[in-house]
């Protein structure tokens, strides 16, 4: 390469426009690189729900709520059944002949 050629190359390099980089260019590049390398996060609602119910605090709260509700409703129903049976025993004792039997 002679002197003329190197001068020409210099002029060409100077004449080439180098636009200004957009703001936060480097940060955005790294973000894109990270997004392609890390496993893709699932946007599925089912996965999100499962992740939610598997949280220990929520899981324990759910179990406690189910046990409490079941116990309360069962106890209430048991009391009603016992009361109904006692009522039927009394009615059968005093009105044996007239008690309706299905």
């Amino acid at each position, binding site marked *: 390469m002679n002197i003329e050629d190197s001068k020409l190359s210099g002029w060409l390099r100077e004449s080439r426009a180098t636009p200004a980089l957009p703001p936060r260019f480097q940060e955005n590049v790294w973000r894109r690189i990270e997004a392609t390398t890390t496993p893709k996060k699932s946007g*599925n609602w*089912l*996965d999100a*729900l*499962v992740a939610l*119910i*598997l949280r220990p605090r929520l899981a324990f709260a*759910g*179990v406690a709520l*189910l*046990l*409490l*509700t*079941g*116990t*309360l*409703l*069962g*106890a*209430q*129903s*048991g*009391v009603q*059944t*016992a*009361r109904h*049976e*006692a*009522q039927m*025993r*009394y*009615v059968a*004792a*005093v*009105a*044996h*002949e*007239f*008690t*309706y039997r299905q």
Partner: protein
Amino acid sequence: MKRSLLILLAALALGAALFAGAYFAAHRASELCCARPADDLNWLQLEFHLSNAELARIRELHEGYLPQCAERCARIAEKKRELDALLGSGTNATGVPVKQAEIAALRAECQSNMLAHFVAVSQAMPPAQGERYLAEMKKFTLGAHEKIEQSMSGDCVHEHAH
């Protein structure tokens, strides 16, 4: 996705099992706890908020009434057996209406004694509770038969309309 679905189904099954277990255990426990088969009158005291004095008076009436009731029931059962025998033999058809009339008369006597007992028991209770007691007893004894009769008469009307 499939794994999440399996986990969700397992969690639902576990939740249902926990709920059902707690429900049935509590149901059985409270049923056993509240059931007092030794005395028919316990229900009466709890249901109608009776004092011990009121319960004692009702117990007296109850114990006086039960042997008479049992005797009438035994007489009705005896007449029913006689009616069955007549119907089974098929020879004495004229005796059937007589036997039916005897059973009906015994039932009427039994019913009027039962109603008199209900009234006496209701009078041994505070007035509001006594009224409620009479209404309950009517519902379980006469009310059920009224329903049957009403449904049957409804059917008859329907039949005759054709």
